[in-house]
């Protein structure tokens, strides 16, 4: 599926995204599964909240990490992966 900049995604039902203090990372939890997310992936999913469009997510992360070059591509890649794994779904 092609990700468009105006797309808005949210965490899929039956999944939970949360910060784990003991692991010092974000995780996604679902029946029979738990995935620890690396820093970048966690930052992206943290903004996949049913309010931010892909464009807005990119803007915010570019602002937050001004020294990271070309992260827009990584962000799209991350959203594609999460969609493929059915962790997130489209709302619009």
């Amino acid at each position, binding site marked *: 599926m092609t990700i468009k900049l105006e797309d808005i995604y949210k965490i899929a*039902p*039956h999944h*939970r995204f*949360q910060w*784990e203090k*003991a*692991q010092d990372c974000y*995780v996604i*939890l*679902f*029946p*029979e*599964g*738990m995935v620890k997310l690396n820093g970048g992936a966690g930052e992206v999913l943290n903004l996949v909240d049913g309010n931010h469009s892909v464009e807005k997510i990119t803007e915010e992360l570019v602002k937050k990490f001004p020294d990271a070059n070309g992260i827009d591509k990584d962000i799209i890649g991350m959203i594609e992966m999460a969609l493929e794994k*059915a962790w997130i779904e489209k709302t619009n």
Partner: protein
Amino acid sequence: MAEKNNGVSSNTTTTQPLWLLAEITYQCPLQCAFCYNPTDFDKHTQNELDTESWIKVLRQSRELGAAQLGISGGEPLLRKDIEEIVTEASSLGYYSNLITSGAGMNEKRIDALKDGGLDHIQLSMHDITEEINNFITNTKTFKLKQKIAAMIKDRGYPMVLNVVLHRYNIDHIKEILEMAEGLGADYIELANTQYYGWSLVNRDQLMPKKEQVLHAEKVTNEFRERIGNKMKIFFVVPDYFEDRPKKCMNGWGEVFMIITANGDVLPCHSARVIPNLEFPNVRNTDVKQIWYDSPAFNKFRGTDWMKEPCRSCSEKENDLGGCRCQAMLLAGDAESADPVCSKSPNRHLIDQAIKDTENPGLEAKPIMFRSNKNSKKISEGEEKERLAKFHALP
């Protein structure tokens, strides 16, 4: 890497118990012939932890990093305080799962559990036929399960079905998958019987033939291809039919921890079969201390404990020598290679078991159901002959 200290590795692990299984009671109205619970559960049924103790250990485990919580048994719904425990678990931030046969569930309880924040319910199903369901559980529970499945769906829980596969239902795999699809299941776990506890006692009766297993795997793959992401299918590999052992529990004391009804803490479901290991108890020890410092949890961490052929095996990190309990139960030595491995000197035990499926002598040795009465018999040393047959040692 763990350091050695008097033969027991000491507190250097960096792992965390991400998965916590709370085996909250060993009581169960069903008598499934394949139950993995200890055959001598009768000894552990007294002295169950009370509500307050469960809440305390849930809090301790959560601080340690546990995030996935399974509430199991026995039948957990036999406890009146499941709603209270679930509510507490949810407020602590666990992703909680009630693992149930459905017995003891009703409209009021399922609503209370939802209100308390329960994330999902895993329901055991046994077959598409009432006859096999009732036979293998030794109870009339077929209609109940259909009813509870509908209730789970109706309340908006993700529907996770668990079907233990054995020679009586494995040929119905296609119909079982279709039933799950019809019920609107989101996940189905097809768990080929692993032989521990009651299923080991009943291995001759339960173990399917190789061609049955291959057929089931083929049908499952075809079904998976058709249904895609709509229903996720986990096929738990029947390890006897493989030539490399499973990486059991993803490693001893790596990510998984079980707290049993009486407060004993185990690295895996069957760990009590290993002799001379004293399992710590939450009544007198903090969970953190148990996970990091107890000799039981450190015993098989890493690879330092290994003997040949595991020690010099190039694949030792892949499977960590397989299952310690299976090595104990079959080869009589918990430090030996899992007999499933084709490099194990005891592989012939597995090959013999596979050969025996051709002529299992089902009439001669009736199935032994998981009942309090049978458990008592086993605790008191009856049925020794039946149990002795599986071991390599005299």
